[in-house]
Structure formats: C-alpha cells, structure tokens
C-alpha cells in the first residue's frame, strides 16, 4: 500500500517557494501520439498497418518491416514488470527535487519492452498494467500500476505528479449560480478537496439554492463576477495565492441563431465565455503558475467547462457556439502560458445541458452531476480533454472523422 497523504501543514512563511521545474520536454513528432492519447486518458501505441507489430519507442518506420504506415491504436496495457530500480540522484532539476524515483522495464503482452515509471505498489516480476499520463511538462509518459487497486494508490508521490488530484487542494468554482456548482462542490469534497470557494456574482440578486450551497461544510461563497474586471482582480488579490485548482463553470446561454439574434445576449455570451476566461486567466494565472511546485497542495490545474459545439457550431445556439469556440482557442493559449508552472488545463466539453435554456432540445442532455463527475475524473487522471455525454462524444468522433461533413450535417440537410 502507499503511505496515505496527510493534510499538509501550513506553509512556513519564511521558506522560499520552490521554483517550478519541468521534466524533459523534447519529443519527436512521432512520439506526440503518446501525448495525444494521454491527454484524453487512452493507452495507445503505434501498430504497423502492414505486419501488425506493436512499436515502442514511437518511430517513423516499422522496426520489423520498415513500413511507414504506423497508426496509433488503443493497446492492451497489461504486461510483466521485468526489472526495477530507484533513481536516487539526478542532475535534472525536476527529478532532483523528487528523488527517490522508481523506474523499471515492463514487457507488454502486446510485444515491446518499455522503460516506464513504476508505482510503489508494483512488485518485481508481477503482472502490471501501463497507464498513459501527461507529466508536468504536458508530455505523454507511461507508468506501471498494480493490476488491482491498492490502498491509497493515488497517494503514491510519483502517480500524484502525473495527476491533478483534488485531494487536499483548495479549489475555486467561479459561478455559484450554475447547476454545476453544487454538484461540483459535492464531488470535489468527496474526492478529498480541502476547501471549496465558490464565486457569486451580484449578491443583490437572489437565486434558488443559495442557502443550501452556502450551508455545505467546506464551502465558502465569495463575491466574483467574471464579467467585471475589478471584481475578478479583487478576488484574485485575496485568494489568488491559495487557489490550487480553478474551475471556470461560468456560463451565459440563450437559444438563437445569427439573423434576428439579440446582440445583447451575444455580447453577454462572449463576456462570460471568452472575456470571462481572459479576465480570470490574467488575474489568477500568474500566481497559480508560480505555485506549480508548492508541495502537496501546489497549484495544479485549470478547468474550463465548454460546449462541445466549440468544435462545430450548432446554428440553433449560434452565438453561444461562437463564444465557446473563442474560449476553446483561448484555452490553448492559456495551456501554453501555464505550462512553465507545470499546470494542467482541462477542458470538459459538454453536450446539451439539462436546463431552462435547452428546453426545446431533445434528450440525451447532461446534468450538473454528470459534468461534475467528468471534472473530477479528468483531474484525477490528469487529462486535458474530457467529453461529457453521448452527444459530446459523438460530435468529437464525427469532427475527427471529417469536420466539413460534420459542419454540413449540423447546419441542416442531414437525414
């Protein structure tokens, strides 16, 4: 079993902050397939399209038949831990701060033998499963895990480095009025979060559910309006230095297309989805980035909850789709900006939501609870992309197949 992670004591104010360091970042373009799979929690390796051999490390031509047709495919992750060792000294700044570090060689049933990070609960010679994870540099790496869940398994320090686990972390949820807020607070507290801070815009305007959310143990409501720069800066000034995970669930949506649409609603959609993200990033981002190596409760992740139609517009929600597309683009820049701190930017893409503004949309629709589960799973697995609901997953698959076909189908004419 892993030693359980205990709640960290208060920081000694006289101790300088550890400067964030990253594990080695360079990869070949071929190796990026591992990163792409890890970003959405899949274990994939290159499979030769001609002879079927599984490849590792990633390469441009098959090691057996020299074919250059090497598509990435989901692969059986099970193998045997042949050998292991513990690194106790490293010249690399990232590993130097984190030794001892266990590594080993796993022979996969699928063929290749791979040097991987090894979880403390794996026994030499035993069967293990590999998982593909993003490291702090945002690159895909492989780690061997025990076949079965072990006590406190997620608390293994090496595995925790490859996740954005909410356990013991202080989390800001930006919009208390959303259906997602109470579900997120509950799910994150159940996952061991130390403290949930929830932003409340316009405290003068009452809303149902306020008392119940405010009464939850471990939850604090704080004034925050993502459409107001001064409000965002004020809250960042107060809690920016102790925000370990920021979950931006702020949303404004009104049904309607472009012609005959309301410029006021369209502007508000952009104010919340795009400028809101921008304001939050500019106010909270720098302090979070600086705290990327701040021990057990380092700043670790930024979560955006987006519409899956950020990929391809739903004309019935045209301006809302556009605002989400803008936010998706900005989230990529945010990912680049937060990378030096080792922070994960997780985008949770939701299909149509079960709320007042999707009354005319037929099911399936996703609930706040489903989105909350996606967020917690995404953080625990250290992902960059989670697709919540059948509609979102279907859109993703069709978009990957052919974005033009998807666009044409979404804009009418599909049978």
């Amino acid at each position: 079993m892993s030693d359980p992670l205990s709640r960290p004591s208060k920081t000694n104010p006289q101790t300088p902050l550890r400067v964030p360091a990253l594990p080695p970042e360079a990869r070949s373009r071929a190796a990026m397939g591992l990163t792409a799979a890890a970003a959405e929690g899949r274990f994939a390796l290159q499979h030769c399209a001609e002879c079927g051999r599984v490849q590792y490390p990633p390469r441009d031509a098959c090691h057996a038949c020299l074919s250059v047709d090497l598509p990435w495919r989901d692969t059986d992750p099970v193998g045997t831990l042949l050998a292991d060792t513990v690194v106790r000294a490293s010249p690399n700044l990232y590993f130097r701060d984190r030794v001892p570090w266990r590594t080993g060689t796993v022979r996969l049933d699928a063929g290749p033998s791979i040097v991987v990070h090894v979880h403390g609960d794996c026994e030499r010679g035993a069967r293990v499963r590999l998982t593909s994870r993003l490291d702090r540099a945002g690159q895909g790496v492989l780690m061997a895990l025990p076949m079965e869940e072990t006590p406190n398994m997620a608390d293994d320090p090496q595995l925790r480095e490859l996740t954005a686990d909410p356990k013991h972390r202080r989390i800001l949820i930006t919009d208390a009025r959303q259906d997602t807020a109470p579900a997120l607070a509950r799910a994150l507290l159940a996952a061991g979060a130390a403290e949930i801070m929830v932003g409340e815009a316009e405290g003068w305007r009452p809303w149902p559910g306020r008392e119940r959310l405010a009464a939850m143990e471990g939850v604090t409501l704080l004034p925050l309006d993502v459409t107001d720069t001064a409000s965002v800066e004020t809250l960042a000034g107060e809690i920016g230095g102790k925000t370990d995970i920021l979950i931006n669930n702020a949303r404004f949506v009104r049904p309607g297309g472009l012609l005959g649409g309301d410029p006021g609603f369209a502007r508000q959609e952009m104010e919340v989805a795009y400028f809101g993200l921008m304001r939050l990033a500019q106010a909270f981002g720098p302090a979070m980035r600086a705290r990327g190596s701040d021990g057990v409760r380092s700043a670790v992740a930024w979560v955006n909850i987006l519409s899956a139609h950020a990929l391809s517009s739903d004309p019935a929600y045209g301006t809302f789709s556009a605002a989400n597309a803008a936010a998706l683009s900005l989230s990529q820049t945010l990912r680049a900006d937060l990378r030096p701190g080792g922070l994960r930017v997780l985008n949770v893409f939701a299909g149509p939501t079960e709320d007042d503004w999707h009354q005319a949309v037929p099911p399936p629709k996703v609930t706040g609870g489903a989105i909350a589960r996606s967020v917690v799973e995404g953080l625990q697995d250290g992902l960059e992309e989670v697709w919540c609901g059948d509609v979102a997953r279907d859109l993703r698959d069709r978009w990957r197949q052919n974005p033009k076909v998807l666009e044409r189908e979404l804009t009418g004419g599909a049978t």
Partner: protein
Amino acid sequence: MSVLADLALALSGGDVEVVDLTHTLDPDFPVIVLPPEFGQCARFRMEEISAYDHRGPSWKWHDISMSEHTGTHFDAPSHWISGRNVPHGSVDEIPPSAFVGPVCVIDCSEGAAGDEDYELTPDVIEAWEARHGRIPEDAWVLMRTDWSKRTGAAYINLREDGAHSPGPTPAAIRLLVEERNIRGFGTETVGTDAGQGSHYDPPFPAHHTLHGAGKYGLQCLKGLDRLPPTGAVLMAAPLKIRNGTGSPLRVLALIEKDSA
C-alpha cells in the same frame, strides 16, 4: 445686484448649499431585473486603458460602459411606448430649461418603513398639499422613501413574485400629470414605478402616464431626506445622447441653508 450674482454670493457664503442626490456608479449597484428572456439592463463596467504605465506613461484613464438606465438616471419620454411619438422625446432633444427647476418632495419615508409596497395615493398628495400648498405647474415631484439607505439585496428586494418597493398608484400619477401638470417624477427606488407596478392598470403607471404626456422620470436618487418639502431647485441634465431614451447623470439640488 443681479439674481445670479446674488446666487453666487449665497453659494460661496454657504447660504445656499449644493446637495448631491446621486449614487456612485458602481459595478455592483443593482439595476432593474427583467424576466430573463427579455433584454437586460447593462451593469456599470470600467476597464483601465492605462495607469501611468507602458500603455500610457503619464496618464490614467478608463473605458466605461453601462445602459442608459444604469445607476441614478433620467428617463426621457421615448423610453416608454406611450411616449414614442412625443415631440422632443429623447434626451438630446429635450430643451435645456427642463433640466433646472423647482422641486417638491413628498415624504413617504414613514409609510415605506412599515410597508415595502407602500403606495403614493391621491390622498397622500392632497394631505401634503394641505400642509405645503398646491404643487406648482412644471415642478419636479420627488417621492422620498429613504429607500436609498438600503443596499444590495434589500434595495432591489426581489422575491419569487417579483420586486417589492414603494411607488405611485395610477390615480396618483394621473393627478400629478393631468391636474398639476408636473415636469417629472422621481424616486429613490430602481424605477419610477413600484416594484409590483406591473400589476396595476395600466401596468407601470408612472412610466405609462408620465412619458405619454411628455414628462420625465428620475430614479435611484439618494439623499432626498436632505431636501425641504418645497423651495429647492433641482438640476438634472442627462448626457446628450442621440436618440437616447435616458441617461445616467449627476443630480444636484440647491437648498437654502437650514431649510431641510
């Protein structure tokens, strides 16, 4: 001495005081809340352009945005459908003489303290006139409720059946407009109508009757407790916005010392 020279002397000597009846423009100051499928009143917002920094080394300035009807503001006749054909119905067309004039203040603070849906009725107006004289033509009439001393949720006072705040009945506003021919009507609440004003006949009687007759509105006023019932001069000049239906503004009153 001329009248204005006398006034200038009175102002500098303190015999005439300038009273500010305006709330600070603040992003968190409540605005009217309509059903969510309707267009909404923009909140006040301020973005820094530069602050003695790389964006402008020696100066600080802001971009601001808001609705015509955010904060302490003026309603022009064209704000309401009943006033859409009134001549000079937008803020840029209103003659400037309308922006300075006499003001009567009807103190409803006691009633509003005990009843958040307190109504200004013809009886209340007539009782006021019995003490202070008939409301003169072309005067501003302000309904003092001390509502401006409330803040946040208590100010907008929204509940599941809508907002609750004092205001005039249809008969009261008809009396002021049709029989007293006032210039305009002002309140300390978020609108010239009561919070439950949509349930009167006609709905929103102050807006309907005032603007249909080419009269003006002032709302979100504060500090009306500093004004005397009669004898003050109100200065309320909206921004000169082309076809504007209203405008945030600084509302001032001139009062004679110790008259309040």
